[in-house]
């Protein structure tokens, strides 16, 4: 394999793995903050139990998110040195700001929250989890601004003397339309996962406790837990559902912006080989298309009339450009966005390299796009079904299908997140910076395939081993259920045991 292929696989493996932990970190921190706020306001002990229970699960997840995140920041320089040199003026700034504004906030205040139960007054302690949760959101803003710039590189110009992209308009980078819509989309996606997680974990306990209740085996304390889990199951389901609605709205806007700034990605998402629509006709949405193996032609398909026109352009008869048309036009010198000075100025550089393949991997983009949507809708379906089954005081019973649903509740949106990212990054190919810098030319020239391959294998092995530990720990603490808690008090005695210690 070439260094380029290995560097891409390494980035894919480490980033997809890192992103298993990100949605829970972003959204569960906030849900825990909300639970703790409810406890502060009502003083009801079951909310403190829920806070500590989900807080602990959140921390098990957070530790992995942190350590796998460090790899991301180093990786740009290690595997993608020419990319880093070429875009550092613009891309480096959000990364540095992310560390300065977001990472410090989340790390420091999470430390205070974990160890501060008996050191800080109640309200101050509550503030710590809120600040940590806000930190995770800030982090998302910066990293998405950086990523969105790779999709739609605006606010920048090409400097031939330094042979790199340089900042022209910082506000334009921050208000990139792709950033503005991607941020809520990613945040909603995170809430779908965390909502599904809370619903799944509490829903599983709920059925177990309800079955025990029917057999007359429930203690007073377990009856309290049953109430708490019922609340949490419905709470999680509503979070998933509302976030799902947000996903649909933002995803729809994203589709239209994508059609504008990355027409090839839209065509690839649909495996639309020839342009359709316009002149009174419309483009059909493919539910299922099977193409030839080299990805250049369609063999068989099942389509819904006119829906693609609407998704891509907002009108029922809008024209959607096809892969083959775009490929030919790009090869003939068309600039994706003629108003983008960076793309215009970088074109001679691309011609000098000689880009031969303008098309992303169609089966990958086509299927990841569908898996993203399908799994997202599946998650929302589970939430609706759960709310229906829990209506008017009803409770679920232990059953294999219920357990299956509760396991799928977090996993379906989680994998939808993964597929969404794989789609958006693979759909940008063959570019690192859309229309400006090819992936092949961004790779570190001084790093051998041996170095990249060895570290890729070792990362995979380490990550695999950690995944086993992580999943076992999560399952263990999920099964233990709501912990016993005592009202935290600020300790003044030097010899008293701490209420929390590693």
């Amino acid at each position, binding site marked *: 394999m070439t260094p380029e292929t290995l560097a891409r696989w390494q980035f894919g493996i480490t980033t997809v793995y890192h992103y298993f932990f990100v949605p829970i970190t972003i959204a569960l921190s906030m849900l825990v903050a909300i639970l703790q706020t409810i406890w502060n306001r009502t003083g009801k002990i079951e909310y403190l139990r829920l806070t500590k229970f989900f807080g602990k699960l959140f921390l098990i997840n957070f530790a992995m998110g942190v350590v796998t995140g460090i790899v991301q920041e180093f990786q*740009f320089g290690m595997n993608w040195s020419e990319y880093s040199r070429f875009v550092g003026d613009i891309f480096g700034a959000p990364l540095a700001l992310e560390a300065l504004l977001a990472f410090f906030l989340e790390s420091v205040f999470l*430390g205070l929250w974990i160890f501060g139960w008996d050191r800080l007054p109640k309200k101050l302690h509550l503030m710590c989890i809120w600040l940590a949760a806000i930190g995770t959101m800030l982090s998302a803003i910066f990293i998405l601004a950086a990523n969105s710039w790779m999709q739609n590189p605006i606010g920048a110009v090409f400097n031939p003397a330094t042979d790199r992209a340089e900042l022209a308009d910082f506000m334009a980078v921050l208000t990139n339309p792709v950033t503005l819509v991607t941020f809520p989309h990613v945040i909603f996606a995170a809430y779908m996962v965390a909502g599904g997680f809370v619903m799944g974990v509490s829903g599983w306990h709920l059925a177990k406790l309800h079955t025990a209740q029917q057999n007359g085996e429930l203690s007073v304390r377990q009856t309290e837990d049953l109430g708490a889990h019922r609340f949490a199951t419905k709470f999680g389901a509503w979070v998933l559902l509302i976030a799902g609605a947000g996903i649909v709205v933002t995803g729809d806007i994203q589709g239209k912006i994508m059609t504008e700034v990355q027409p090839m990605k839209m065509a690839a998402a649909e495996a639309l080989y020839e342009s359709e629509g316009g002149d009174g006709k419309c483009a059909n949405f493919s539910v299922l298309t099977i193409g030839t193996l080299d990805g250049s032609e369609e063999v068989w398909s099942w389509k819904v009339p006119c829906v693609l026109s609407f998704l891509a352009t907002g009108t029922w008869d809008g024209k959607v450009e096809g892969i083959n048309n775009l490929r030919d036009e790009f090869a003939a010198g068309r600039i994706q966005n003629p108003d983008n000075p960076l793309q215009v100025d970088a074109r001679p550089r691309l011609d000098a390299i000689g880009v031969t393949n303008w098309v992303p991997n169609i089966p990958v983009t086509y299927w990841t796009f569908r898996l993203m949507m399908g799994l997202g809708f599946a998650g929302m379906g589970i939430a609706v079904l759960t709310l229906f089954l829990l209506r008017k005081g009803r409770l679920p019973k232990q059953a294999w299908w219920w357990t299956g649903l509760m396991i799928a509740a977090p996993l379906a949106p989680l994998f939808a997140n993964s597929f969404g990212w794989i789609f958006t990054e693979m759909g940008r190919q063959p570019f690192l910076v859309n229309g400006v810098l090819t992936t092949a030319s961004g790779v570190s020239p001084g790093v051998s395939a041996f170095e990249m391959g060895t570290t890729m294998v070792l990362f995979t092995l380490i990550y695999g081993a950690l995944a086993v530990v992580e999943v076992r720990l999560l399952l263990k603490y999920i099964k233990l259920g709501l912990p016993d808690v005592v009202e935290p008090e600020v300790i003044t005695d030097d010899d008293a045991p701490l209420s929390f210690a590693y």
Partner: protein
Amino acid sequence: MDFTTLQIVWFCLIAVLWTGYLVLEGFDYGVAMLIPILGKTEKEKRVIINTIGPVWDGNEVWLLTAGGAMFAAFPAWYATLFSGLYLPLFFVLVGLIVRGVAFEYRSKHPEMSAKRTFDAMASIGSFVVSLIFGVAFANFMIGLPVAARPPATAEATTTLFMLSPAPYLLQLFSPFAILGGIVLVVLFLFHGAIYLVLKTRGIVQERAKRFAAVIGLVAIVGGAVFLLWQNLAIHPTGWLGWVLLVVAAAGLVAAWWFVGRGERPGVAFLGTTVTTLCVAVGVFLTMWPNLGFANAPGAEHVLNAATAASQDSTLTIMLVAAIIFVPIVVAYTAWTYWVFRRPISVDNIPDEDHHEAAHAG
């Protein structure tokens, strides 16, 4: 601000971030390395871990911010350094991963064998990271040889640089660099032991004191040899280098005295902090303006602060953000240390968490 001033300011800011990392995470690397050495019983080990429990993650962010600032302010520095030191940085990452999960995971596994594994991960991870950064900084003082890739066009005045010859791996381990690695490990052990004296009571504190008395002497001798070697042969930096050497040595001697007979661990901690500061300043002094690289003599294209820097508008925007937010970060970090100021002993360590939770489900 003109472009050259901006470069100097950003070089200094990056030095400040690295110094913050070395001073703060330096002691928590030292503490983590000392878990198996100073902790005999399970509760003693937990005392040691809990002294850094609330703060180590925040300390690590100094490293991430330093890396991010290098990327933003000097992209070519970041690109050449990180790709050039590929395998060492891979092991730094592995070290940071295994130590980072160890603290969280160890508290959630009741089996002693698992705890021993996680202790080893915390100690060895911290050791590997300290050692590699020590070797790396010594190499920055020597100067990493670089070669330019042919520029993309005739117009281009800058291009990507790579360490030469690539892979540049075995060459990193010169005697001076190996000494640098050992000295940094010893300095962190000393710094960490003093931190433990400051933050614990009882048996752990006694042991930390005895350990500091021994490792302090090693640090004084090792540090003196390293800085003398640098100032005499490797990369002399004139009178300033000698001043830094004297202050660094005085810091170590004061630390050794005050942690032992002087009975003032707070002053001792200040001593190792001053030393770490002087060493960091000394290292960065040798890195201006070539950023720790050695360009080939007479080369047409060179890698230095001027050719590696981002344009002035990026540097200006980032500087405004740094001026506003660095003091805020320092303020709330200081507050954390204030909240957790109280020293702890085995009496403060509660029984294990999972026993508490076990009868809930």
